[in-house]
């Protein structure tokens, strides 16, 4: 923990105690605090396009009274008097406004007094050294990418004294290298900084780029046997996670996986999916401080085993909560491995398409769980187990009941851990652990 982070830690603790003292006996409050000290550097043509240092500290308060709920939040100035006064201003206005409203479906009783602390520190060179080093490594190729680093803190506390503290110093370098219009994409992130491993990652990307210099293959629309690398699998899983595993979405008639949940359709028995917070890249507590200590099976052998169920949803529908976040998204996706060794992928693919990434996936038919999206980055045509050359980008449109169902051949034994690289508003915490996937008859339409 650096000095600045230690000063903030003490400040946040003192501030949240003060906030809690303001809550009356017939009121409840839970606080979520996110603090970040970010370095963002974006690159184009292996040089620096923009650099930004950012300090931000966001407090959110879920305030409840007579089952009315109002949530409010603001950026902290890091001055006890100023921040407390602003909090009291929001609190008093909330008391007035909520008295004119009805009881909320988002009400959840607050009774936890648990405490926990998780701090992950990564020893690595300072950003000032790393950025020029990156420019130097890519001086002979056309690299475009994004360096993101700095400590991220997440705290959940409540007026009763619950206090969970999570701090992670995670970093990532998300980049692509180009040869003309064709590119290879990669990600370097690790809990142990290793210049050797970083260089290996770069060298592997450069080797892959050489394959893209072969003649371009333009394929007709139709069905093809395909191998999807873990990054492509993550794109599909992330789309399914967009409401697909949410109990509330299902109960409200909005779930794209309704037919799977109702057992009208099935996935392959090879598919098992878990919310696995033991990966350690996201806090094991949610925004109201509920703690998930064990992995939660979502799909087991092709069948829905659990849906992500927040306590608010559980109360509304009279079912059991599994302490999902209110959005009911899976934070750490863990897709079970199969029996295919990565070294055998090309041989088993035989003739078909090798897909390293997919792009911009969306539902084309929600009720039948049909997805559409594009191939992107290094995607190759393979004949008799040999890469022939890159393919022209193609659009797929296929049901999840085909891709992860009847047409699924196998998943790889080896899996890849991909940290979340999202940076909208705040840095996304979490990861996907996924194997590659071999599938028959993937449908391409354009």
């Amino acid at each position, binding site marked *: 923990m650096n000095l600045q982070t230690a000063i903030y830690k003490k400040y946040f603790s003192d501030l949240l105690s003060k906030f809690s003292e303001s809550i009356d006996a017939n009121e409840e409050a839970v606080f979520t605090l996110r603090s970040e000290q970010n370095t963002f550097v974006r690159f184009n043509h292996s040089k620096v396009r923009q650099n930004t240092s950012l300090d931000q500290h966001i407090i959110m308060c879920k305030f409840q009274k007579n089952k009315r709920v109002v949530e409010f939040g603001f950026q902290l100035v890091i001055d006890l008097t100023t921040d407390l006064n602003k909090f009291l201003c929001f609190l008093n206005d909330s008391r007035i*406004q909520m008295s004119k409203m009805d009881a*909320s479906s988002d009400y959840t009783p607050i009774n936890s007094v648990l405490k926990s602390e998780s701090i992950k520190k990564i020893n690595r060179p300072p950003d000032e050294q790393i950025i020029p080093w990156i420019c130097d490594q890519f001086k002979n190729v056309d690299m475009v990418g*994004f360096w993101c680093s700095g400590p991220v803190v997440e705290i959940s506390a409540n007026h009763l004294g619950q206090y969970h503290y999570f701090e992670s110093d995670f970093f990532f370098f998300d980049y692509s290298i180009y040869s003309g219009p064709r*590119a290879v994409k990669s990600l370097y992130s690790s809990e142990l900084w290793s210049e050797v491993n970083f260089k290996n990652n770069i060298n592997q990307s450069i080797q892959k780029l050489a394959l893209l210099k072969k003649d371009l293959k333009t394929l007709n629309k139709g069905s093809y046997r395909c191998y999807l690398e873990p990054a492509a699998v993550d794109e599909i899983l992330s789309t399914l996670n967009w409401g697909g595993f949410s109990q509330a979405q299902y109960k409200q008639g909005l779930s794209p996986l309704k037919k799977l949940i109702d057992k009208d359709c099935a996935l392959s028995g090879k598919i098992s999916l878990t919310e696995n917070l033991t990966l350690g890249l996201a806090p094991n507590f949610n925004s109201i401080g509920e703690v998930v200590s064990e992995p939660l099976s979502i799909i087991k052998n092709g069948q829905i085993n659990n849906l992500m169920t927040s306590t608010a949803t559980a109360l509304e529908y009279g079912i059991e909560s599994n302490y999902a976040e209110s959005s009911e998204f899976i934070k750490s996706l863990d897709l079970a491995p199969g029996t295919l060794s990565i070294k055998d992928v090309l041989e088993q693919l035989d003739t078909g398409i090798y897909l390293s990434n997919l792009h911009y996936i969306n539902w084309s*038919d929600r009720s039948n769980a049909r997805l559409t999206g*594009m191939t992107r980055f290094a995607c190759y045509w393979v004949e008799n187990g040999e890469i022939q050359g890159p393919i022209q980008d193609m659009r797929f449109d296929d049901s999840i009941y085909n891709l992860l169902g009847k047409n699924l051949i196998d998943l790889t034994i080896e899996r890849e851990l991909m940290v979340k690289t999202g940076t909208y508003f705040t840095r996304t915490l979490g990861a996907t652990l996924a194997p590659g996937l071999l599938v028959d008859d993937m449908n391409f339409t*354009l």
Partner: protein
Amino acid sequence: MQIDIQNELKKIKNDSDHVAFKIVKESTRDLSVRNEIPQKIQTYEDYGVMIEVMRNGHIGYAATCELNSESIQNTYKKAVEMTSHLSQHAVTEFNSSVRPPSKGHYISKRTVGLDQLSLAEAYDFLKTLCKELRCNSLIKTAITDTMIVETEHHYVSSSGADFLQNFNLATVSLSSTAVDSRDSQTRTFHGGRGLCLQAGKEYFDLSRYLNDCQTISKEAIELLKADNCPDKTCDLILSPDQMLLQIHESIGHPLELDRILGDERNFAGWSFVSPDDFGQLQYGSSLLDVTFDPFVDNQFASYNFDEIGNPAEKKFLIEKGLLKAGLGSLESQFRSGLPGVANSRSMSWNRAPIDRMANINVEPGTESLEELISRVDDGIIMFSNRSWSIDDYRRKFQFGCEYAKEIKNGQIGRTLKNPNYRGITVPFWNSLAGLTHAGTIEKYGSPYCGKGEPSQIIRVGHSSPYALFKNIDIFGA
């Protein structure tokens, strides 16, 4: 605590080529009501300062929400240190021409400010509309929501820029999901949060929406019994609330100069448009006129200056189908030598500005909607976006809509559900065969256009008439 950034700027020992401070204060109230029960009632205040410095021609940034003099001075030092250090690795060496010394102000057009609308009043408004949506037992889920934003940007620079822009922005969304034993269909008020405008409290007048509630729910139920959209090639009319997506994805994004320059290749993507295409590429048929227009009353992304002080002006991006200018800020114009617009924009104080869309509009034609329909022997008219996907070069797209009507021999026929269409950008816009007149133009937009590393959302506006396209691939579920 109020911070005088002009005063803070004066305090620094400036040895940079350029320094600017931008302070943003934004209040957002986000409410949703499901089946007349409050689901989310949230208020959030975003407040911070972004400092930009130019060192050796390289522009870098540092930002903080710690709004006190000491932190602001420290943040300035951070910006200087990092930017000086990295300037030897910079993509471009800019000069002061990319930061004009603009002065002035802007205020959103409104009758009564949104600060006069209380949280409880907004809740009552949504609850009433939600009740109206639940007019039939087949409506299983009715959701109404609104986002109410008041924001103020103040930018001052060492070169003398000093401008203040004050926005009132609002979205209203209505959604009805009808469910029977076989199907579930959702109909919304112009697609998710498509109905978004710069407006005041007057926008929250129930009489503007009550009739629409009845229509939406009736159409959601109608879709349960409707036939699927067929798979075929035919004429397609798009309503303005689908044109918003079509413009956004297949004109707006590919014309962003920072994409064309390659900045977004690792995330949002590149562009099929090359620098040589400006002045040469017949992007669409001769009917197609597309403008960057920051001065449309109440449109979601109207303003007087972009966020680096470039005065905004209306400009034709495409005229009579010919590509004329890109969506590029002064920085992108400097790098590419191409014509651009005032569109350097950021999500808030905590993100560096990049090339963004603002109001990108299709100009009207001359026909009435009835005349347009009468010209279609075999076709479909589609309404309200519900699905979108396009490749990273913005060529091959596939979009889905909520609701469609068949057109046979110039007459509207049966209702169709799950309508989708796909195409390739330039041939698609060249198949444009008709546009309705100015009186049919509708204004929509999105609060959520995503782009950039670090990622940021931005508010965009798109207005359009109805548009007829010939020989398009359509398909159903």
